[in-house]
């Protein structure tokens, strides 16, 4: 599309996956021809396989293939933004609830720390375990089990349950679609993993930003009182050590954001204590810098770092998947290999049968015993005239009156003379033409037989004897296939006095 910018990597990856799926059932030759035609104009211009694949997808888009990558990518952006906004709202709401103060009970910093530090770090720990690559998880005790257990909690598991409640008619189709989607997910496992982490971290960043904003808003526009309270045995020293540890990252340059032991002691709140007694009024509000710093350092910053890391890894895994995902090698093979074809473009037309109408009863004609034969050596069968006459005469029990030569090296004029001589030799009622059985009955021999028949008239018997040669150079019976060819072809002449007989020792035609 004119003016359309190149889609982002994730969009191209989706297009690639969809296109590979679409091509799965198409003939390889057809795909090869299409794809080479698309990328060949760029040959030498594409600096890498990635560029080549991008160009290929661009070519397909230009050719009218519907590609969902851009829409998918836009939907992802909307989703990530929505999650961030949702996180912002929930974070604001959570902070507003935890920092709620109506003058009766002070804000309990233990709740704030539990939700915005401990709770988030527990989730971060689980996320960290999920992020451990498979090859490392194998060596960390329990990591694999936790990963598997967390996978069971995936909302994706509900799909199987949902399918069971779909009408039977649509169930198989839906299951197929889900399986195909799962196949794609598996193919681009790492990409999806980082995409999901990126989306979840955008929610988490929103959540922490919302909570921090709410905290600062309430601190600025309302008068909050903080205390700490627990049912367990409260030990000021332990709590002080804990807050010191938590504030270690900023205590040097922001000492006010690290609560002192006195503040901790003074703001301890008991159930039976009268509200806000035991400390100066301004002391009850001095917890907020510590809480805000905790929310920034232990909530917002790690999530922002993770968001950045997930974005970087998402891009990296998408780049790698683009050229390394299963199936891409086959596409690249098509793009980089020449498309070679050597076959004829059109199917062969059926050749007409030249044998013509088959006439039966040709074999019925026979020659009276003892009558002389005129022999024609067609095509130069390599045997002397005497030998040929003697072998044929003895075998067929005939007198060979003459041996003549036609075809082969003989000239057309010479063939004409042979025909004239035979026509004149009326004392030789039969004419036998010996032909090489291994040579096909071409038009040249057919022409000769037609002319001979015309010259000798319809009454005289014409015997065509296909002969083979044995290794010693003697006459031998022809192969059935060769004899069959001669028979089929000569039948088309429709000559009732023409007989085709394969050479057979002692068999009289």
């Amino acid at each position: 599309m004119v003016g359309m910018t190149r889609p982002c990597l994730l969009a191209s990856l989706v297009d690639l996956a969809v296109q590979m799926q679409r091509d799965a059932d198409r003939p390889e030759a057809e795909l090869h021809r299409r794809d080479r035609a698309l990328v060949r104009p760029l040959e030498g211009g594409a600096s890498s396989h990635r560029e080549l694949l991008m160009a290929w997808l661009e070519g397909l888009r230009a050719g009218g293939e519907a590609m969902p990558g851009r829409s998918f990518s836009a939907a992802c952006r909307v989703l990530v933004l929505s999650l961030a906004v949702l996180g912002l709202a929930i974070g604001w709401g959570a902070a507003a609830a935890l920092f709620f103060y109506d003058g009766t009970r002070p804000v309990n910093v233990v709740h704030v720390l539990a939700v915005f530090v401990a709770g988030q770090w527990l989730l971060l720990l689980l996320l960290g375990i999920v992020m451990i690559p498979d090859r490392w998880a194998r060596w960390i005790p329990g990591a694999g089990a936790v990963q598997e257990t967390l996978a069971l909690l995936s909302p994706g598991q509900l799909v199987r349950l949902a399918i069971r409640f779909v009408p039977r008619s649509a169930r198989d189709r839906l299951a197929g679609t889900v399986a195909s989607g799962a196949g794609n997910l598996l193919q681009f496992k790492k990409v999806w993993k980082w995409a999901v982490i990126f989306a979840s971290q955008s929610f988490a960043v929103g959540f922490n930003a919302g909570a921090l904003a709410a905290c600062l808003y309430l601190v600025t526009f309302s008068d909050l009182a903080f205390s700490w309270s627990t049912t367990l045995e409260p030990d000021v020293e332990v709590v002080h050590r804990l807050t010191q540890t938590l504030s270690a990252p900023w205590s040097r340059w922001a000492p006010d954001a690290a609560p002192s032991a006195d503040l901790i002691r003074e703001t301890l709140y008991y159930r039976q204590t009268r509200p806000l007694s035991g400390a100066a009024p301004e002391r009850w509000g001095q917890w907020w810098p510590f809480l805000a710093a905790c929310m920034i350092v232990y909530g917002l910053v790690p999530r922002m770092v993770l968001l950045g890391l997930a974005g970087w890894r998402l891009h990296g895994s998408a780049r790698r998947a683009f050229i390394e995902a299963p199936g891409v090698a086959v596409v690249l093979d098509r793009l980089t290999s020449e498309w070679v074809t050597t076959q004829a473009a059109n199917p062969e037309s059926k050749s007409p049968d030249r044998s013509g109408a088959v006439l039966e009863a040709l074999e019925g004609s026979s020659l009276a015993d003892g009558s002389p034969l005129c022999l024609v050596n067609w095509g130069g069968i390599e045997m002397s005239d005497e030998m040929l006459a003697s072998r044929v005469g003895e075998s067929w029990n005939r007198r060979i009156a003459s041996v003549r030569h036609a075809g082969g090296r003989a000239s057309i004029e010479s063939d004409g003379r042979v025909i004239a001589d035979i026509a004149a030799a009326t004392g030789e009622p039969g004419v036998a033409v010996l032909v090489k059985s291994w040579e096909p009955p071409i038009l040249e021999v057919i022409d000769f037989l037609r002319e001979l028949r015309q010259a000798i008239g319809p009454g005289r018997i014409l015997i065509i004897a296909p002969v083979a040669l044995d290794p010693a150079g003697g006459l031998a019976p022809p192969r059935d296939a060769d004899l069959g060819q001669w028979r089929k072809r000569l039948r088309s002449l429709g000559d009732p006095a023409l007989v085709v007989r394969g050479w057979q020792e002692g068999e009289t035609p």
Partner: protein
Amino acid sequence: MSLPVFAVVGHPNKGKSSIVATLASDDSVEIGPEPGTTTRCRRYPMVVDGEELYALVDTPGFQRARRALHWMKQHETSADLHADVARRFLEAHRGQDSFPDECELLQPILDGAGILYVVDGSVPYGEEYEPEMEILRWTGRPSLGLINPIGPADHIESWRSALGQFFKVVRVFNAVAAEFQKRVDLIRAFGQLNEEWRARLDRVVVSLEGDRRRKRRLSARAAAEALVEMLAHRVERRLPSDADTAAARPAIEEEFREDLRRFEQRARDIVEQCYSHRRIERREEALQLLDEDLFAETTWLRFGLSRREIMATGAMGGAATGAIVDAHFGGASMLAGTLLGAGIGATVGWWTADRLVTVKILDLPLGGKRLVAGPTRNASFPHVVFNRARYHHFLVSHRTHATRGDLILTGDRAHPMPALDKEDRAALEGVFDRLRKRRGEPDIVGRLAEVIERVFDKDE
């Protein structure tokens, strides 16, 4: 540079179409024992990325060569004008009944094609061929004599000496048995006919060799995909908890066997398509299953829950309860409550899973038995499948397109391939081992395809 075109000419029924079928890798060429199967010229261009590099033209055989030569001699003026006479012959007889085949076969030659004159080296030389060769000489085009021994007898030497008198280059080329390298050598030999064609024909050879390698790659991939699919395949049936599983086994086993056969046959089809064999009829023994017991029996539950999932759910519930106890002791219990709770929850989950299958809700059982056939565990099975694929590839890749008849992979001729060398055997066993142990690898098919391709390369 003119496009190299070669007209394949000769006496009828001497294997011209077989030569073309083999060189063009086209099994649609009509090859028949009857003379005159080819009556019209048919062009077989070699096109690389849309560019035509050379072409073969199959032609009808000479039918009236002596008469045609007779005509030409009658119209001869001087030896240097022989080609003109041939052209005049064509003009005089085109579209008429007297010399349809001669006109058809001379047309591409007089248009500039080189001549490949084909004879059958298994039958004796005959003087009737001389007019044909003489006519071809009259055209003045570069020519090559090709002896194609169709039958078992050997008359090659007599043919070689006869053809040597008419053609500058004479080659023996068995169209049915020619291996790929011989086909390439022949195309290189075409380059000897005309210096101008040599560079382009060298490019043809490079492209053909590249294409051949690609065919091996695709075939190896198809074989690898089928193997991975076959080794992972399983057929599952859900039966009521009181069903007789022994009675259900034969039907499931048959379905499993049929699925494996389908995977294998699909790979066979792909390999044959890769090598442009579209008409092969295969005869192959059915694949035997080697597992003594292919079946595993477990239970299943509605809502997609497996026993493991129920166990995990129980463990998590138990752990959560135990964690509350731990919290009560302020951590002094050293997570004993959590661990104990998880253990108890898992055990209860495991025990409950078996009991749940018999529970009925609204008269529908909550679960039942699951009978699973496969995946096959036999260590020899992947080797058997691989050897079958290897032998099939060997036969297909070595089969010329002039060969007719079934592709036989059964009986005594099954799998007579040489043993693999040590390196390939180890690589193959490594991949099979991974497949057997279901150890995940992102592109196991690609890895296996690489090894198979290496074996196919060596078979070549």
